């Protein structure tokens, strides 16, 4: 499992830390695995440290790898024997899947002036769509296309409500082939003119955070002029009139 491997790596990292015993700042963990719930907006990791040396350690900087993560240290200066923690707060936003964010800590410890703390979060969103865009070419047969919605099983979603921003598309929801799966069937009224609609999807989960879920449906504009001229020429050459005229060589 995910956790076992990272625990193994964590233990090895800790062992490595113990070997180089001259380091003064000892970290309980330099890598933390988190599994935020689907309705969590943030994932918070606590990196605990202790000054096991006999001189104070000063944090010169604490810097996260991306703007989505903020990191703060309890104390700028850690006296010998003092404990504390660096708290890394990862703002999940619209991210999904395994996210790895790091916090680089600079200290005045000459042995280990730079430490990288790793926050790994496995995010399972409330709903996932595949694909998030369905489209039809101009003139394509207006058959329905399917968006498969997978719901987080912890959310116990029974029903999805789908509405289109314009009446040019209709959407209906059926249960999918697996539990917690839904089939959203989208159909355009016609495909003769370019249209764009946002499909708003609302789950009925009691824990619904009010998050907006959307997919898009489009009828593309007709092909650019140059392309249709070429196809017209090809069509003309293929007509019986042209073939009847050419054999007389």
């Amino acid at each position, binding site marked *: 499992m995910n956790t076992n*491997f990272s625990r193994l790596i964590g233990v090895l990292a800790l062992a490595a830390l113990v070997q180089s015993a001259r380091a003064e700042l000892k970290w309980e963990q330099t890598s933390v695995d988190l599994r935020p719930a689907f309705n969590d907006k943030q994932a918070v990791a606590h990196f605990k440290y202790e000054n096991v040396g006999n001189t104070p350690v000063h944090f010169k900087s604490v810097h996260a790898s991306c703007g989505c993560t903020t990191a703060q240290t309890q104390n700028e200066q850690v006296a010998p024997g003092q404990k504390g923690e660096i708290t890394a707060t990862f703002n999940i936003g619209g991210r999904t899947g395994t996210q790895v964010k790091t916090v680089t800590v600079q200290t005045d410890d000459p042995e280990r002036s730079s430490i990288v703390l790793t926050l790994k979060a496995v995010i399972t969103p409330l709903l996932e769509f595949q694909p998030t865009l369905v489209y039809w070419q101009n003139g394509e047969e207006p058959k329905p296309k399917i968006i498969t919605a997978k719901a987080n099983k912890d959310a116990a979603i029974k029903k999805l409500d789908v509405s289109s921003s314009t009446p040019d598309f209709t959407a209906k929801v059926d249960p999918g082939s697996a539990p917690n799966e839904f089939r959203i069937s989208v159909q355009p009224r016609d495909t003769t003119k370019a249209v764009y609609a946002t499909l708003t999807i609302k789950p009925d989960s009691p824990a619904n955070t009010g998050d907006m879920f959307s997919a898009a449906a489009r009828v593309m504009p007709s092909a650019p002029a140059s392309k249709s001229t070429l196809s017209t020429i090809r069509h003309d050459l293929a007509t019986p009139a042209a073939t009847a005229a050419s054999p007389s060589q």
Partner: protein
Amino acid sequence: MDLSSRNILWRIVALIVGGIFIYAGVIKAMDPVAFANDIDNYKILPWPLAVRLAFYLPWLEMLCGLALLLRSFYRGGLFILTGLVSIFIIASVVARARGLDITCGCFGHASKNWNFSGHLALDLAIFAALIALWISSPRQQQEL
């Protein structure tokens, strides 16, 4: 009687394992580009090699699976499949240790959502079955 019922047991195991490899081979042969990408994800082989392997391996798997089913080239097939599964298990563990997020690719994108330990368990089971078939085969060896 004991011998023939054991024979039947091994036959069934061979059928199942052979079937698994034929299935896996067919799925990969249907989308060689996807399989090439999956091999590439392990970051062990250079791309040109990975893509050529992606075209070749599925057919080898299918042939060896067939060898198990038809009991023709039986031990040769077992030999190759055992080798393939071992290499694959090692590569998976190495990739995992390197922190790579791998989609197995062994059962095509059908297995995209399985987790690592599930895959590993299945592969070890297949490996064990192959070894068992190998050990049990001399008693039933039909020269071909």
